[in-house]
C-alpha cells in the first residue's frame, strides 16, 4: 500500500540529516546547516521538526506530536497522521508514554526522562537575526562569541520599558558558549531546557538549520544580575478543568463583561490529571 520508503525519505537523505544531528549534539547550541528537503507539509509548518523526526524514528518508537501544547490542534494532527502513515509507529497523547515528542513552541509539563527525545520546531533559528540580518555576519559573531548586540537589545528594552520585553523565544546561553534561540517557547519553558535529562533537538526546515542540546546541558536565559529573568506570571490562576496551578495556562476570552477563564495549555497533561482525579473520586487507586 505504501509506495514510500520507511519514514518517507530515502536512506541517503536520512543519513544526511543524522550526520547534521550528530554534529549538532557534539557542539551544543551551534546551528548546523543541512540541505532540508521540501516536505508534503508547508515550510513554516514544522518541516524542520518533521525532518528530524523522520531521520531518527524507528519502528519501536511511540510518538507524541503537539502544537502550541495541544495534541488535537489541526497541525499536530496532520503531522502525526503523516508520520504514522509513513512509519506505522504507535502514537500517544501522554508525554510519559512517548519515546519521541515533536512539539511546536511548548516543552511538556511532565518532566522528560533520559529515555526520551524532544524535537522542537523552529521558525527563526538565528537568535541574532533581530540585530544582525546577514547570515554571514551573524555566523562570524557566533564564531567570535561576540554577543554585544543581543545584550544591548535587552538593555535597550530595560531603558525603554523598565524591564526586558521579550515574549516567547527569549534568548539563552548554552554551556557558556553559544547564544541560542530556544524556539518560540514561552519564557516559562526556558528553565525546563536547563539540565534536562532528555536529548533536545531543534529543526528549522525553511532556514535549513539543525541544533541540539544533549542531556544535562547548562542553558541559561539571558538576563542581567540586577534585572533577573522573569517568566510569564501564572500567579493566582487555576485551570478550570483540572485545577492545576503554576503551569502554563491558556487564557480564553468570554463575552464582554465576564472575566477570562484559564485552562492548561498542555492538553495531554490536563487530560491525565482529569482522569486520575475522576478515578480518585470514584475511590480507585491511581493506575500507575
Amino acid at each position: 500500500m505504501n509506495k514510500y520508503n520507511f519514514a518517507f525519505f530515502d536512506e541517503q537523505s536520512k543519513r544526511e540529516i543524522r550526520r547534521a544531528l550528530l554534529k549538532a549534539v557534539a557542539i551544543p547550541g551551534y546551528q548546523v546547516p543541512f540541505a532540508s528537503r521540501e516536505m508534503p507539509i508547508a515550510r513554516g509548518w514544522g518541516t524542520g521538526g518533521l525532518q528530524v523526526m523522520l531521520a531518527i524514528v524507528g519502528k519501536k518508537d511511540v510518538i507524541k506530536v503537539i502544537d502550541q501544547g495541544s495534541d488535537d490542534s489541526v497541525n499536530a494532527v496532520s503531522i502525526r497522521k503523516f508520520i504514522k502513515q509513513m512509519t506505522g509507529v504507535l502514537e500517544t497523547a501522554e508525554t510519559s508514554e512517548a519515546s519521541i515528542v515533536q512539539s511546536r513552541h511548548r516543552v511538556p509539563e511532565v518532566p522528560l526522562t533520559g529515555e526520551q527525545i524532544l524535537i522542537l520546531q523552529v521558525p527563526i533559528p538565528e537568535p541574532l537575526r533581530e540585530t544582525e540580518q546577514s547570515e554571514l555576519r551573524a555566523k562570524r559573531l557566533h564564531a567570535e562569541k561576540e554577543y554585544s548586540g543581543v545584550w544591548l537589545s535587552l538593555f535597550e528594552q530595560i531603558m525603554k520599558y523598565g524591564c526586558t520585553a521579550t515574549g516567547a523565544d527569549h534568548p539563552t546561553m548554552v554551556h557558556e558558549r553559544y547564544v541560542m534561540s530556544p524556539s518560540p517557547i514561552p519564557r516559562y519553558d526556558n528553565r525546563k531546557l536547563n539540565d534536562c535529562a532528555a536529548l533536545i533537538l531543534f529543526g528549522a526546515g525553511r532556514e535549513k538549520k539543525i541544533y541540539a542540546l544533549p542531556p544535562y546541558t547548562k542553558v541559561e536565559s539571558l538576563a542581567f544580575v540586577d534585572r533577573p529573568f522573569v517568566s510569564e506570571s501564572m500567579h493566582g490562576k487555576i485551570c478550570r478543568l483540572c485545577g492545576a496551578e503554576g503551569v502554563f495556562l491558556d487564557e480564553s476570552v468570554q463575552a464582554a463583561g465576564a472575566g477570562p477563564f484559564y485552562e492548561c495549555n498542555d492538553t495531554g497533561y490536563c487530560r491525565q490529571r482529569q482522569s486520575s482525579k475522576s478515578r480518585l473520586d470514584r475511590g480507585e487507586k491511581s493506575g500507575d
Partner: protein
Amino acid sequence: MAYVAVKGGEAAIAESIKRLRYERLRERRTIAVKAIRSGLRALVDRVMSEASLYAKELAALAIKQAEGNPEEATFLLRAYRSTLPRKYYSRLTSMGSMFVERRISAAFKDIAGGQLLGASADYTHRLLDFNLEKETSANVRAWLAAFQREQEAEKPSVMPRVELPRVTDILRSEGLLRHMQQDDTAPRDITRQSMTFPAERSERLQTLTRGESGAVVALGYAAIRGYGLAAHPTVAALVVGRVAITIDYPLGACDSDDEALYLGQVRVTEVDAIIPAAKKGPGGKQEIEIRLGYGLCFGQNESKAIAMSVLDYCLEHPIPDSPVHDEEFVLTHIDSVEASGFISHLKLPHYVTFQSELDAARRINRGER
C-alpha cells in the same frame, strides 16, 4: 500500556479535505490532465520552472490537483521531487547546440542568423478574444490543417543546419566585452547541500532559476527602476529553444557526446543582458566596460529569465545598502515554497506565543519590573 487515542481535530480535518474536493468538483466538470498539459502551456512551464522539475505530465497533474494555483502546484511538485533519489548529474550542455524556436536581440537590429520571433504574445493586442468561447475541435482541426499546408508550401526540402552565433561573442570579438575563461567547475547542488553565504555563483543561479516568477520579476524591476543598478540593461539576446540533456554512460565517463546517453530535451529560455559600468582604465582613466548578466530557466518564461539576468548581474556586483544587490536578501526571499510556507504559517494557532507577548505587554503597562 494504553495509548490514548487522539480525537477532535482529526474529524474536522477529514471534513475540510472533503469540502476541498467538493469545491473542485461542484460544477460537475473535470478537466483532463492532457487538456492542462496542452492548453495551459504557460502555467505548466511556470510550475516546472519554480518546482525545478522538468516533467510536463506531473506539472499538469499538480495544476489539476491545485485547481490552477501555481503556488500550490509548485509545492506539490517540490514535495514529490524530495522523494526522488538523485541518481545522475547531466553532462555539460552547450547552449550553442540549442534547437532555437525564438531568438530576438534588442541590442542589434540585424544579427547573424536573423531575428526569429517564434511564438510570443508580445506582438498581440491584449484584447479578449471572444471567439475562443466557441472554439470547437472541428474549428481547431480545420485551422491546423490550413496551417500545416501553409508551412509545407514554404518549407525548403532540406532544412539547412545553421549554427547561430551568440550576440555576446560579437561584442567580445570587438573587445567591448571582457573575454572570460570557460569555467566548468562542477556546480554545488543546493538541493543536497544547503547554501551558505557568501554563495557561489552556481548556487545563486540555481536559486534564481527556481525562484517564484513574480518575486524574481519584482526584484529585477526594482533593480532597473533605481534601487541599485542605476543602469538600463540591454537584452543582447533572448532565446527560447530546446536543448538535449545527456548523462555519462553509467559504467564510466565518456569522452564524446556520441558515447553519452541521451535522456531527452528540455525547453528553456535563455537571456544575455548587457550592462555598461564604469571601470578604471590604464593610468586611472575612467572607461566604460560592458558587463554581462545571465538568465536561464525551464520553459518559456521570458520576464522571469530577463529579471534573472538582471539579478545575476546585481549579485555579481554588490553595492552596499542596495537590497537587490544583497545576495542574502534576494536569495532567501524568492523561493515560492519557502515564502508562501512562512506566510501561510501565520494561519496556525499562536496562542502560546501570543499569551507570552500579552504577558510582557501587561507587565510593562502595569509598571511592574
